[in-house]
């Protein structure tokens, strides 16, 4: 398993952000759904080794992130797009992506090719030499995705990747996600149910720090059938039905 968590918890001050998550994921795209404050971002930050768990067991790419040497190996194979992407306004697109290629210890001789491939893959070739301060929110998001994939990660963690993307860019991004999921484990946190339906092979639904559903998008859809759960689409009704059931 590329992602394996057992009874994982994370406390942030007095708040129990993640309350005993047991989850596993292999190659493919796993959509992490849930309302705001469900604990998706905290879970992703633990998977990204940005914060350690308070308790529970976590293994990533078959390694223990609690061990320094193994964590470094994980990080070399990891791509992460945080919810709010910090960036250096004076950097160009290429400089920013290159900076993270170097921090991820992509071998120096491979960096130019890796950067070019990542920038082209997110469709920013014509903006490669443009300063980040001049880019729109959607373009910055794509820069964030480019830095996340520059090391061709085996584990890719994306927190709200489609925020700020227009419909055309979102469709292109879903295609990219499906493509990336062929060879890597991709975990996408989102509250947009349609993104999950279009791009994810598995879906986990979080509420109040817990996983309340884990299955395929089709199985989530089934959960909404025959109920009066709210939602415009079948998947949304499944989402609402599971949430209502978890909270009852």
């Amino acid at each position, binding site marked *: 398993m590329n992602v394996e968590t057992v009874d994982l918890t994370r406390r942030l001050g007095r708040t129990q952000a993640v309350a005993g998550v047991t989850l596993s994921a292999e190659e493919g795209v796993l959509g992490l759904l849930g309302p705001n404050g469900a604990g998706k971002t905290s879970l992703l930050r633990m998977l990204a080794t940005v914060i350690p768990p308070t308790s529970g067991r976590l293994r990533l790419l078959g390694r223990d992130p609690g061990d320094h040497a193994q964590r470094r190996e994980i990080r070399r194979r990891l791509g992460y797009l945080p919810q709010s992407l910090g960036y*250096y306004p004076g950097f160009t697109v290429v400089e920013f992506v290159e*900076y993270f290629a170097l921090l991820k210890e992509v071998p120096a001789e491979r960096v130019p090719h890796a950067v070019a491939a990542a920038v082209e893959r997110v469709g920013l070739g014509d903006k490669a030499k443009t300063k980040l301060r001049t880019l729109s929110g959607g373009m910055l998001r794509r820069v964030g995705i480019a830095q996340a994939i520059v090391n061709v990660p085996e584990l890719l963690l994306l927190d709200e990747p489609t925020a700020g993307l227009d419909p055309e860019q979102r469709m292109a991004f879903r295609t990219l996600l499906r493509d990336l999921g062929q060879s890597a484990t991709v975990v996408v946190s989102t509250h947009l149910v349609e993104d999950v339906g279009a791009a994810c092979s598995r879906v986990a639904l979080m509420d109040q720090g817990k996983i309340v559903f884990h299955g395929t998008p089709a199985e989530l859809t089934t959960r909404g059938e025959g109920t009066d759960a709210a939602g415009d689409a079948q998947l949304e009704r499944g989402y609402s039905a599971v949430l209502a059931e978890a909270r009852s």
Partner: protein
Amino acid sequence: MTGEHHHAGEVDLGRVWIGVTAQAWRRHPGRLERLAGRLLRSPGLARALVVTPSLLLGWLIATGLVLVAGVLATRETGTPYVAICAPGIAAASIAYAYGPGIDPAWELSRSTAVSDRMVLLVRALAVFALNAAFGLAGSAASGAATAVTFGWLLPMTAMCALALAAATLARSANVGMAAGVAAWLIAILSGQAGAGRLSAAVTDSVLIAPYLATAVGGAAIVLYAIRTERGTR
């Protein structure tokens, strides 16, 4: 050659294009970055070092201008303004070396193979060394007595450690700078009040022990604050 057996349709144009753009977009690191890369044995660490906010050209020019003003004022009045300014400037610079609030991509860089702890240590050492070199050059140029020329190095170390400790604990460069500069102002004004000289803060041997304690305590706090959180298995 294997290429002779390829049909025109088999040429991977996408791959060719990536190769072309890779060459066109390739960034050539400057001499300093190449040297840092060799010394640190890490191109990533070297790159992180050369983009340190308080090592950027504008910041260095500002530091240089303040010290030049200090040299001129020292020569004019005899009061060692370079020695008095240097610890405060260094404290501000080191607070702005790395961390949330000042390094926009801090969250992202915490997930990379080059550890954020190493980045902070390398940047802090570089900022300290550069400020010490600036201060020593300024002191020498101002013709200050030997005791004054080197007397500010210990207070500078103490203020830097304090500023960095405050910045890492509060996760704010501004808090770190405020703590370092405020502590140094208090030391100077206390010296003025007690000994009647602004320079007492850098020449009074009674202060050596408190400065040492501050330096060691600050460094210990920094190391604790940036310790590697091991998490659970």
